[in-house]
Every structure is written in C-alpha cells, then in structure tokens.
C-alpha cells in the first residue's frame, strides 16, 4: 500500500470519525443525564441534512410541519395530564413554547425560504427547527417513563427511532439529497488534495467540542447536567430540576445531530434512513468509552473512522462486521476492569 493511499484513507477515516465523535459524545450526554440509550440520535442527523437541502432549494422543509405537530401533541399531553387544571403562567408557557413558537417558525420559514437567504441563515433556520424537537421528543416519549428501567427506556427509544424514521420518509420522501459544501475548493496536503469541506468538518467538530467543554465547566446549566448525570436523586435534593436537565440534554442532542447532518450532507448523499447506521457507529465509540467519558469517546470515534476506512479498503464486504465486532473485546475489558459486580439495585 502506497503512502498516498494511506493518507487518503486517513483523511476519509478522520472525517467520518469526527462526525461519529459528535454523535458518540451526544449519546454519552443523553445517557448519563437521562439513562436513555438514544438510538434515534441518527434521525436528527438525517433531518438536519434534509432540512438544509430543502432550504437550499427554496422549499419549506417537512421538519417545520413536524415541529408544529410535535408541539401540538406535547401541549395536548400536558393539558390532558393536568386535566385542564394548570396555573395561568404554566399555560402561557406551554402555549408560547409548544404552539405559538412552532407556528411562528413555520410562518417565518415559508416566507424566508423562497428568497434563498444564503447558507448562514439556512443553517440558523435548520437549527431553530430541529433543536426544539429534542425536548418535545423527550416530553412525549420519555418523561412519562423517567423512572423506568434502562431496558424499558431503550425499547421506548427504539419506538422513537421507528416513528421518526417513518415520519422522515413521510415528509422528505425516499430520495436522498446532497447539500452544498460550507467551503468550496481543495487544499493540497503532501501528495493528496483535501477538500475544504473536510477542513470545515474538523473545525466545526472542534468548535462544538470546545463549547461543550465550556458549557459543562463554566455554566450553571452545564453543571446541573453534570450533577444529574452523577446522581439524579442528589441533584434533585439540591434543587436541580431533573426534567429540565433532561430537556436540555435532548435539545443538545437534536442540535448536535442537526449540525452533524449539515456537516456530512455535502460529503455523502443523505436519505431519511441514513442516520441510523451513522448514529450506531457513534454509539460504538460511546460504548468503547464505557458510556461515560467524553474525550475517550471522541478518541474512540476517530479510531473507528480510521478502522472503517482501512477495512473498507482491504475487506470491504466485512467492513461492518469488523467495526461492530471491535466492541466485544472492549466490553470484556471494561467488565473485568469493573471487577465482580455488587448486587445492583433493581431499577
């Protein structure tokens, strides 16, 4: 194998690895805060890319309608649960957040989109449409199950994955799309040329990671999230609203998912069902890092990206076998390192 091929594979691997790292870190975040193994994370990736693609074409993206639908459903569930007896302030909050905001957004989008406002506005709109879906999905699917076992929450996450994939197919259709790159052109690196989009992927991934770090280390909400992750009951006792931190975690998950979609959109064709396998690989990275450490997850994700690109070159048929089997030795090592399990309290 020539050094050129090696470099080429490395570029490919680092690129995919960066996106897996974003998704893996998000999975760790959501799991530690809410105990949900959020397999539907990949759907936000696809929705992000497809929303962006629709905006580029000057069309109203299907996610705008989905947001209105989700908001109405969440408001209806809140009203039903409270049997109509809600304090006025809460009622106003629900109306503003779950009904008025999505409707305003769909109005804004249908006015702005046909004017093709340019990439930065389109990215902002994409995020505005997808970020609120995170908390809404949590409210509808997981909040009523907040005290259930990890298994039940996982099965519910699979339900969410199925429903979201179906919804994606319904509003975006079966066809895939490719979006315009953030940065055009190429730069020469040694014997190969690197797409500027690849540089953009690395830069954005780095920026997201850095802001997550600042968020967790320097802000009160970030600290509340960490507290919930360490000990839910303890966090509650010192006044952290566990439902609130869960909503924040899901908002971050949706946001980072959408960003990942915008990043990979120009590199590969994204269809309504592309997200799942991408998400699963982020998941493999998260597992290797024991669903606990962010830096380890990012490292593992890079390693998986590299492993994937090299195995695609040498044994392409067995690429997925290799990528997914790599977990087993790590799981074993983690289990042994953890020592004999004490009696775990039944959840």
């Amino acid at each position: 194998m020539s050094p050129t091929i090696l470099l080429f594979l490395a570029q490919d691997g680092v690129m995919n690895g960066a996106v897996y790292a974003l998704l893996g870190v998000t999975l760790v975040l959501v799991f530690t805060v809410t105990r949900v193994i959020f397999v539907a994370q990949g759907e936000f990736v696809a929705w992000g890319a497809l929303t962006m693609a629709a905006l580029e074409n000057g069309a109203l993206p299907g996610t705008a309608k989905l947001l209105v639908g989700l908001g109405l459903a969440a408001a209806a569930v809140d009203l039903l649960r409270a049997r109509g007896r809600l304090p006025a302030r809460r009622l106003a909050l629900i109306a503003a957040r779950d009904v008025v905001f999505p409707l305003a957004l769909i109005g804004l989008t249908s006015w702005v989109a046909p004017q093709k406002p340019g990439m930065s506005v389109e990215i902002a709109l994409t995020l505005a449409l997808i970020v609120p879906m995170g908390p809404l999905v949590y409210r509808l699917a997981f909040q009523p199950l907040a005290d259930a076992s990890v298994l039940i929450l996982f099965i519910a996450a699979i339900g969410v994955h199925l429903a979201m994939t179906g919804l994606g197919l319904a509003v975006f259709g079966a066809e895939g799309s490719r979006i315009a790159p953030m940065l055009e052109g190429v730069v020469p690196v040694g014997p190969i040329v690197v797409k500027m989009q690849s540089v953009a992927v690395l830069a954005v991934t780095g920026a997201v990671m850095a802001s997550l770090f600042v968020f967790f280390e320097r802000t009160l909400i970030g600290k509340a999230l960490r507290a919930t992750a360490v000990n839910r009951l303890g966090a509650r006792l010192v006044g952290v609203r566990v439902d609130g931190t869960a909503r924040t975690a899901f908002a971050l998950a949706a946001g980072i998912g959408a960003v990942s979609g915008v990043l990979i959109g120009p590199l590969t064709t994204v269809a309504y069902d592309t997200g799942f396998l991408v998400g699963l690989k982020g998941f493999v990275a998260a597992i290797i890092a024991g669903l606990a450490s962010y830096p380890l997850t990012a490292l593992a994700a890079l390693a998986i990206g590299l492993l994937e690109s090299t195995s695609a070159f040498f044994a392409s048929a067995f690429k997925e076998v290799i990528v997914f089997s790599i977990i087993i030795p790590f799981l074993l090592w983690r289990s042994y390192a953890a020592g004999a399990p004490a009696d775990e309290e039944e959840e």
Partner: protein
Amino acid sequence: MRASPRLVGLVVIALMAVAPLLPFTPDFWVTLAGYIGLASLVAIGLVLLTGVGGMTSFGQAAFVGFGAYTTAVLTTTFGFSPWATLPVSLLTTGLVALAIGLVTVRLSGHFLPLGTIAWGISFFYLFGNLAVLGGYDGISGIPPIAIGPWALIDSRAVDYLIWLAVLIAVVLSDNLLDSRMGRAIRALRGGGAFAESFGVDTAQAKLVVFVYAGLLAGLSGWLYAHVQRSVSPSPFGLGAGIEYLIMAVLGGSGYVLGGVVGAAVVAVFNDQLQNWLPKLMEGGGNLDAIVFGILLIAALQLARSGLWPALRKLGPPAAPKAVDLTAPPLPKRPANAKGAPLLEVTGVSKRFGGLVAVNEVSFSVRGGEIVGLIGPNGAGKSTTFNLLTGVASASSGEIRFRGERIDRLPARKIAERGIARTFQHVRLVPGMTVLENVAIGAHLRARVGALSSLVRLDRAREAEIIAEAARQIERVGLAEHMHKAAGSLALGQARLAEIARALCLDPALLLLDEPAAGLRFAEKKELAALLDRLRAEGMSLLLVEHDMDFVMQLTDHIVVLDFGLKIAEGAPKAIAESPAVLEAYLGGVA
C-alpha cells in the same frame, strides 16, 4: 405462571394449534398463526433470559439464523433429510450460544445488552458475506418437513408442528423455572451476587439460561427454514432481534406466556397495520412504522410490565405451590462439638484504597456459642461479615474454618463448608414467594440439574427442598406468609425470611447481620428463643446487632470494633463495664 392461568394459556395455545383444522379459517390467518408460533419460541427464550434472568439480548435473531442456515446447508448441499438436521441444528446453535455465552454473560450491567447488539449486527453481515451461505440472496429450495410419506407443505399442516413445539417450549420453560436451577436463574436479576452466598454458581446459571434461550431460537430457525423453504440474512439481523425483544417486553417479560402474547400482538399488529393503513390514508405505505413506534411507546407508558400480567389479573389467582411435609428430610451435616474451635480469625485487615475498614482484627468462634460483634456505625462489622463469607477478600490476615483456610475461597465454596449468612440490606427476590426465596438456601443440599428439571425428573428432590424450606419458615414464625411475594413483607418479616433461608443451608456457623432490627418486642423475644434453641442444638452464631439488651442477654462472648480496630473482647458483663467501649459509644465518660 402455574395452575389456573397456566391452564388458560395452554388452552389458548391448543386453540392456535387446532384452528387450522377448521376449514373456514382464512389462509392468511393460518400463515399468521404459524408466524406467531415461530416468534413465540424465540420470545419465550427471551422471557427467561431477559425478563427472568435479567440479561437483555438484542441478538436472539442471530441464533434463529444459525438454526436455519445449518439445516438449509445440510439439506440442500448435502442432501440430509430435515429430521436428521434437527439435532445438528440444535447442536450448532447450542455450541454457538455456549461460546458466545461464555464471553457475553461475563459482561456486567449495560455492557451485556450492548455486546448482544454488537454480535447481532456482526452475524448479520457475516451471513450475508459468506459464499457458502449464498450471500445476501441466501439459500432456496429447502425441502419441507415430512412425516412418513406426508410432506408438510401446506401451511395448515405445518401449523400443528409449530404449535406443538411452542407447547413443549412453554411446558419445559415452566418446569425449568419451577425448580432448583430455575430459582437460581430467577435470583440473577439485579446482580444475584447474594445467591453465591448460598452456593449458587451464578455464572453457570447465566450460561444455562443463555444456552436454553439460544436453543429455543435455534429450534425456531430450523422450523422457519422448512416452512419458508428458503433463508436469507435479513430475518436474522439486529432489526429482527429488536422485534423479538419488543415482543417479550410488550407481552410481559416476566412470564413465559407473556412471550406468546407479545408475539401474537406484534405479529397481528404488523399485519393489520399493513392491511388497513393504506386504505385509511392515501399513500400510507410508510405509516406502519410511525404507528407501530407510537403504539409501542404508548404501551410502555400505560402497561410497563406488559400485557400478560394485566390479562392474568382477570382470571383466578395462581394456586400456591404444593408443600408435602411428608417428604423425607434432606441430609444434615453432623452437629458441632460443643466448645471445639470452629472459626479462627487472625490479624485480618481490609483496605479500600487509603481507608482501613478492618484493621488487624482477631477473634474466634467455638462450637455451640453465640458471639456478638458490636460497634458504632462504620466500625467495620459488615465488612468483617463480607470477609468471612467471601463476598469481599481480605487484604491481609488469615481466616480458618475447622482448621482450613477459607480467606481465599469464593463465596459459594465457603457456603459449601457450612457458613450461612443474612444481609443487613435485605436481599430477597421480591417477585418470588417467601417459600421459593427460602428454598434457595437449600441449593447445595439437593443437587439436581437443569436437564432433569426440564422433564420433571427432579420432583422427589424438589419436594424435599420445598418441605425443608417450609419447615424453616415455620421455625422462624412466618408460616402464614409462606405463599406471599417476598416484596410484600414488612422489614422485620423479611429479616426473618432471610434467617429461614440461611437455616435451609443447614449451617455449622450462622452469621446474622442485625436480625432484630425492625422487629417488635414480642417478635424479638421469639427470635431470641429461636437463636437460643439453635445454640443448644450445637450451631454456632455470630451476630451483628445494635439492640444492646438483645446482645447482652443472648451472647456468650462479645467482640467490640471501632474504626476497624478491635477495642475490647470478653463476656457480656465485662464488656458492658469496659471504659474503652463506653468511650467509643458515648464519646467518653466525664
């Protein structure tokens, strides 16, 4: 699971088997019934593995694949007859399950389900990429199963066979759960480490249930290959594995029949959604995933423990397990010689990082005496118990039982030598009855394996175990609560149940961790009388207890710990007057 609800379930299964007899049953219902039966086999295995044993598996579809591909290759390439491949299919699946199980069941906590996802995905791509298995196109032209000259090609004909297999699986699974090995499997949920203290080899119990679930999946695969007459990788991937798990959880993953109910509900739903949704809504071909996903979430939110437990409440309650007190008693070990040295603890320490929980502690227990181990909170009493019973291992020092070193032995080997214990935080399996919980204590006294319990060859020994459990429950005064779920007991009663379970081991040395906590005055007096009788029979007891009256009146000898150090030792009267003890408890006497 037993008696009347079980009967109802068996009748339903029988109906499913007979339904195709009726000529007016539409064909697609017959096909659907066959599919439900095939899925039920896998879901029943998952109920035992996940719901009962606490090990979540997303990879069961891969075992179905091993069963199906084995027979597909053997019948098409090598011309075997389908019946001849049945044992080979089962053997292959069993060996693969054993190999995967040896690796997988050692995974702790969430790592185990994640591991099953990994091999669930890997095997799918492996099936699809091996040329000998026909790649992603798979293998077709598999012959149908034939009984004598009759080939079972018609779906009505093959339906009998499928549902006969389901019926057998239900009966075998119920038999397994209602046995010595079954109780060990049911104790696995939530970690099951306590069961090791009663001699249960939890790693073996996990492996047994893992292989059993794998075999049921393999049987389903064998049937599937001959019903479908062709195999390809897609029904054996992660998606199918997840669907089987959904069946088990929706149906009620704690109940064998929950697997059948779940398989039926999911199959009928999938089928009906595909039929009706396009008619209800234009272009609704993709709506079934949405509706299925939403219904799944709604079902979890409304009935978290599944449909079968909800259905079961409509029928009469299960009959209590029969107790035959005339069964011959289990073998007993010879009583301790009064006053002979039994347990010798010499200079034992336990360090957790920089913290010394137990520091150079020495004491001994003789035959037929009650020794009290007291001290303020955090003195190291429970840690000492854990060192004695092998739950934790000592950092240094020696523990000898009847002269033999036991400080390096695992918990179940120590239990084998006749040391039983209770736990400070009650460790009963909440969903099992008091009788079944206590019977775990007799695990080592009647060794009867999983295979004989499957076919009920264990009934004589089982009766002996249950009779012994009932006798010990009566002894601690819980006879009227025998058939209640352990989770419904008050704290004091649960502690008594733990004592009964420990007595079932027929111990030479009984370690009791705060037995009197949560008991009322009269109950404490009865407990003291019981412990006194046990001592008179030659049993030795080591007692951690905070109720000083209880300790002072009952014990022969007291060891006092404070911050991991032994600060005093002697007769109760001397201890009560010891200045060091008063200092530790009351912070000094001015």
